[in-house]
């Protein structure tokens, strides 16, 4: 696997300032309509395309920005301040890019694809879950049917987030019709070569703009589009850790924005009576501790993963210790985001509960609950429970 080089820090500070501008001027103004209509956050994703951010993780030697996981996490966190759905679409896209960047170098097809990604700013979705196996990523029913140098693949996917708006979809499937359910590959299919037949809609409490509807995906293509290493390795080295870091980052963004609103509310209260600190200031002080812990967890795991990528030891990613730590981040941050937004709501009181207030926190709270549910915590906790039976030391 190959690790992208780190961009120069000062360039990154400039880039972050641009992202904050886009967040304030484009993404946040659209967020209410995205949420109300459960529609794709088109203006936000287009603005990120204009900043060339859909190829941000492509290494510099291929012409990309070469940002690292810490920087991608920081961008997801910042986007989470403005619109969680936009941040989630961006985060999920980066996961697919990372799978290709880490595991398909040396493939002429995928290197050419990454160059086109820079030029055309494609949006890549993912089809992992499947009707019949549910959310078990390590099990597939569908299979790649190869004939000569072409393949056909049909997958009944209960969820393909923003599938209807994607230029490509990275699909997991069995390697061949006679392969075991766990013998999987990742296949990149192009919009011109796939059809999506809708099987379910997406009308949820939160993350309404991810448009995570279900489809029967029918696709075909060249066998070059099959990732050259088993999906098990792609998952353990990239998809699993990268996903939990970028998701936790954007949940941190939701939590931070909620606390920022609570801070503004407490300040306004304090100005009314400067002699006596408002009761809510104590609640804010307590909430700040929880937010601090959440932020440290997220940043520590991103740094841990960045270090492991540099060490480039595939066995380290496959260890139960690394897998449980990664899961711990997901379990902890998906729970903390609900806790923190709830605390911010209590601080802002009726002003946070109202939808027509500048302290409104309804969307934050609805989005926050998705963190534990959209990839179910019970399954992850169960995996950790199993792995911990084998581990002798923590």
């Amino acid at each position, binding site marked *: 696997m190959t690790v992208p080089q780190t961009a120069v820090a000062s360039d990154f500070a400039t880039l972050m300032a641009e992202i904050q501008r886009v967040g304030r001027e484009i993404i946040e103004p659209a967020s209410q309509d995205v949420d109300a209509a459960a529609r794709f956050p088109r203006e936000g994703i287009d603005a990120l395309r204009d900043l060339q951010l859909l190829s941000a993780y492509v290494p510099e030697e291929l012409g990309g920005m070469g940002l690292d996981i810490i920087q991608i996490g920081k961008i997801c966190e910042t986007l989470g301040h403005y619109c969680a759905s936009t941040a989630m679409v961006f985060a999920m896209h980066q996961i697919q890019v990372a799978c290709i960047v880490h595991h398909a170098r040396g493939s002429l097809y995928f290197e050419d694809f990454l160059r086109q990604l820079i030029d055309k700013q494609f949006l890549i979705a993912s089809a992992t879950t499947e009707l019949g196996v549910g959310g078990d990523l*390590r099990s597939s029913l569908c299979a790649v049917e190869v004939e000569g140098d072409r393949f056909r693949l049909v997958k009944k996917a209960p969820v393909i987030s923003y599938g209807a708006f994607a230029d490509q979809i990275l699909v997991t499937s069995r390697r061949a019709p006679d392969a*075991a*359910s*766990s*013998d999987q590959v990742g296949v990149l299919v192009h919009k011109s070569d796939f059809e999506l037949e809708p099987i379910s809609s997406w009308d949820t409490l939160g993350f309404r703009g991810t448009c995570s509807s279900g489809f029967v995906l029918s696709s075909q293509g060249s066998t070059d589009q099959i990732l050259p290493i088993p999906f*098990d390795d792609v998952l*353990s080295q990239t998809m699993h850790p990268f996903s939990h870091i970028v998701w936790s980052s954007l949940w941190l963004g939701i939590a931070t924005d909620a606390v920022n609103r609570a801070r503004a509310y407490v300040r306004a209260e304090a100005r009314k009576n400067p002699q006596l600190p408002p009761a809510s200031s104590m609640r804010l002080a307590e909430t700040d501790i929880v937010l601090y812990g959440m932020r440290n967890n997220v940043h520590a795991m991103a740094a841990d993963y960045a270090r492991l990528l540099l060490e480039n030891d595939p*066995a380290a990613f*496959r*260890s*139960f*210790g690394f*897998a449980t730590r990664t899961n711990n981040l997901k379990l902890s941050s998906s729970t903390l985001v609900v806790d923190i937004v709830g605390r911010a709501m209590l601080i802002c009181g009726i002003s946070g509960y109202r939808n027509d207030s500048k302290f409104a926190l309804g969307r934050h709270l609805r989005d926050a609950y998705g963190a534990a549910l959209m990839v179910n915590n019970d399954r992850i906790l169960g*995996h950790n429970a*199993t*792995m911990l*039976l*084998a*581990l*002798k*030391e923590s």
Partner: protein
Amino acid sequence: MYVEKVRDIVAQHGRLSVQVGELANDSDLYSAGLTSLATVGLMLALEDGFEIEFPDSMLSRKTFGSIASLAAAVEELAGKTVSV
């Protein structure tokens, strides 16, 4: 002497997609459907069957890759030298 008992335990606890009888001692168990999570049940059964403990450093794909590699690991942990 280890390899036959290891075979029995793999058959019972490996959750493979093929019959263990169809596998050679050096066949890749992961290709035969062994998953990372299934190695835990397999490990516990081997620990119980041979009265051994796998250290964390041996919980690797190398150890669980084949019946032969498992038998070698069991042999090492049981502290005996018997050809497998």
